[in-house]
């Protein structure tokens, strides 16, 4: 598969094009983390293909020194699906925004996930349409005031992770733009996962939706408001790392403090990213402030059949068993007759 690893540095992955994102935009940090992850993965550069839709975030391929394709609004998932199906040997990355993936491209997004094509999806969630200058997106909370909702929206948002689960996704992770170290780790895991890996990155748009994630990302409170999941480890968080997630009597998640009400470390749930049953994964995805911390890291990572591999395998199998080996065989098969 992806052997012939070579050694290169992050500089080799940067294209000469000047980056045009606004100063302070979260996208700068995300591209940094992606490039670092690619260096870690050490896949030959020519095997990376970065496919994007349309949006601020989708300018991404122009800043990469890899193969890249800036397609049309909402369709990156479909273009990437064709690319990966045609050549499963490539490392295909889809760059998309909350509008690109979940509004105009919603149909392609869910079907890519359902098919489990081996594509790494980085979903830049700034909860706004950046490129078109500030209209509401399918991840805006009800009541959000934007240029197209001057009196507030009257609709509720998608939770991207739940959409992934509902589409029978095999990999979902969450990251924060500014936390390059953690994003890097998540991207590497996403790339290693066989199947569609969706990473939702909470991204700050300084111009049209500044501070939309600050409640969660604010360094002053982050220990208490972020739960960084690690596979096989207890779900602990908090400044003193003494808070954790437990099951309550109703079978739902709850925050508990070790040492209070008789709670011990043993009561804290252990994160199982590979649990095929998505029940707990969904509850983790659903956790919101202020009742809960917000979950980050790889929330779900389960093994399943991979579309592009199955497609290849089926072709090999049929080839082996068929008498038709070339087009002439096909043309001259069936009921033919000679005219002399």
């Amino acid at each position, binding site marked *: 598969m992806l052997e012939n690893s070579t050694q290169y540095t992050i500089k080799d992955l940067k294209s000469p094009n000047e980056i045009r994102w606004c100063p302070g935009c979260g996208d700068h940090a995300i591209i940094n983390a992606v490039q670092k992850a690619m260096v870690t993965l050490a896949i030959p550069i020519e095997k990376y293909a970065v496919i994007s839709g349309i949006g601020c975030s989708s300018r991404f391929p122009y800043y990469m020194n890899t193969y890249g394709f800036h397609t049309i609004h909402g369709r990156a998932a479909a273009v990437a699906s064709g690319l990966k199906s045609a050549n499963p040997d490539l490392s295909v990355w889809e760059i998309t925004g909350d509008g690109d993936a979940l509004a105009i491209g919603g149909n392609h997004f869910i079907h890519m996930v359902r098919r489990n094509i081996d594509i790494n999806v980085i979903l830049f969630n700034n909860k706004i349409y950046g490129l078109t200058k500030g209209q509401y997106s399918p991840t805006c909370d009800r009541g959000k005031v934007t240029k197209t909702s001057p009196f507030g929206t009257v609709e509720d948002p998608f939770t991207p992770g739940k959409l992934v689960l509902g589409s029978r996704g095999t990999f979902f992770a969450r990251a924060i733009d500014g936390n390059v170290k953690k994003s890097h780790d998540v991207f590497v895991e996403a790339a290693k996962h066989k199947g569609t890996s969706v990473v939702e990155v909470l991204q700050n748009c300084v111009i049209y939706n500044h501070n939309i994630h600050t409640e969660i990302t604010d360094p002053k409170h982050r220990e208490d408001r972020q739960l960084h999941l690690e596979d096989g480890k207890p779900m602990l968080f908090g400044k003193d790392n003494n808070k954790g997630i437990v099951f309550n009597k109703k079978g739902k998640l709850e925050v508990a403090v070790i040492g209070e009400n008789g709670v011990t470390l043993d009561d804290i749930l252990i994160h199982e990213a590979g649990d095929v049953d998505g029940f707990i994964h969904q509850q983790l995805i659903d956790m919101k402030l202020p009742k809960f911390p917000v979950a980050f890291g790889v929330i779900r990572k389960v093994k399943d059949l991979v579309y592009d591999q199955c497609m290849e395998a089926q072709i090999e199998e049929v080839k082996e068993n068929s008498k038709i080996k*070339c087009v002439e065989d096909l043309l001259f098969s069936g009921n033919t007759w000679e005219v002399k």
Partner: protein
Amino acid sequence: MSTEAKIIELDEVAIRFSGDSGDGMQLTGTLFSDASALHGNDISTFPDFPSEIRAPQGTVGGVSGFQVHFGASQINTPGDLAHVLVAMNPAAIKANAKFIRLQGTIIYDSDSFTEKNFQKAQFKTTDPFEELSLHDYRKIAVPISNLTKESLKEFGLDNKSVLRSKNMFALGLVCWMFNRPLDYIETFITKKFAKKPTVVEANLKVLHDGFNYGMNMQHMTPRYVVNPAPIEKGTYRTVHGNQATAWGILAAAEKAKKPLFIGSYPITPATDVLQELAARKDLGVKSFQAEDEIAGICTTIGASFAGHFAVTSTSGPGLALKSEAMGLAVIAELPIVVINVQRGGPSTGLPTKTEQSDLLQSLYGRNGESPMVVLAASSPSDCFYYAYMASKIAMERMTPVILLTDGFLGNGSQPMRLPRMSELPEINPAHAHDVENYKPYKRDAETLAREWAYPGMKGFEHRIGGLEKGEDGNVSHDPANHQKMCDIRAEKVARVADMIPDIDVYGNPEGGEILLVGWGGTHGHLLSSARELRAEGIDVSLAHFNYIQPLPQNTEQIFSKYQKIIVCELNSGQFALYLRDQFPQFNYAQMNKLQGLPFTNDEIKSRVQKEMKGSLSC
């Protein structure tokens, strides 16, 4: 009364098999056509499906028909009107009355003439022939249902299974009438039901009983002889247009040494193209049934970016959905073929009927200046060739190409002389070779094609996309560059003219009074009409177009040689509009039809005759 059958020698015969959707008329028609083709006749077929899959049994809406035209000379159309109608119920007679030739023969299942069936077919009386004023026809009542039951009484089958075989009785009878040997049909049935020996036995028994019935009832049924047609030497088989299209694509991929990808979404009447290719995993085809037409073309574009030869197939409404992505293929200059099997529109329109009304959509239906190469096939079997050429143009010139066929071609069938791969023209995709000097939009000086480099090729890493680019592949908002790139994309398409043949004129290439101009699927009808008119001494010629954008280089010169040009098409004048724009110096009269049906020879001939009278009087 003589007991010998009257033997009628004919040059050509059209038979229409018709019955309820469940009566197996498509299979009956197909088997009869194949048997005729094997017998050495030239054939052309036209299936006429109901658009509702499960219209109520016995109603006119549920009638399914299959017309086959075969002859001792070249057959270009399925025939306007049938010499023989086989009708399995009263609804079939009602639905097809207008398709029977005056004094033609109607063979019908007299057991189906029941009160209930008359009602279902909305006859007011119990005499459908009288009600439809079918006076001058030879009507042959055959108790097909009961004879089938009688034939199978030893088999102990249930009533439903027995009646399912009645189409075989009709087929046997018609084979006797037209002197077709049964061996091909026998082999087919034996193979098809190999796992169900009783079904094989029952069907063969009924088939033979039908044949023998004809022989025994000679006094009732006329017998026809249609001699084999003189045809070019070679190996032949019957193909449907959609099948031929798929094969042409396969042949092109093999010739270009490219893996083939198809991303598509089912839609009548184009689905068979996807199905044919999906079945060809043995030839390495990657078929991707997408979630919609947009994804169909976008996966195709993705596969093309990956270096595969990639195609997408659809019909009108699907083509509309693909518009934005076609524009992406235009600006990204990636080779894809978009196969559009036209049907009646607008909107869902007439899904199972034919039309040529997507021409302007194909030429102009995209945002921005977005020129594409457009080709049109003109017979079920030449779908192979034009699919092949569309692929060759796409891969050599790095441009998306639209191939237009239509429901009439796609579902129609014809014998096709099978080519050897060595007979087909070379295909040399515009691959990038020179790593040192590669630029995404560097062009071949002659063809203006850019070079095809794709992920996995070391050293050629580059970015493309929907934003306007400079030669280096970087985004460019420079006004002069946009002008230049638009001009180049248009010129690149125009230069495809250097690889397409001049247009051939049938009739009098030196010029003359009337030039019929057609394109795509109307070729058979226009050609046979022109032939018949010329035989009557009328000075009419035919220029039929397969290359629409660009047009053949001699088009203007040809047009200038005729006094009158009549552009004939199954829309309200789209090609005429295009030609007026290309060559405004000529006058274009029009012949148009929007009924979901092909032209008939009579229509074309009377249109020309009218034109002649017009010119005499002025």
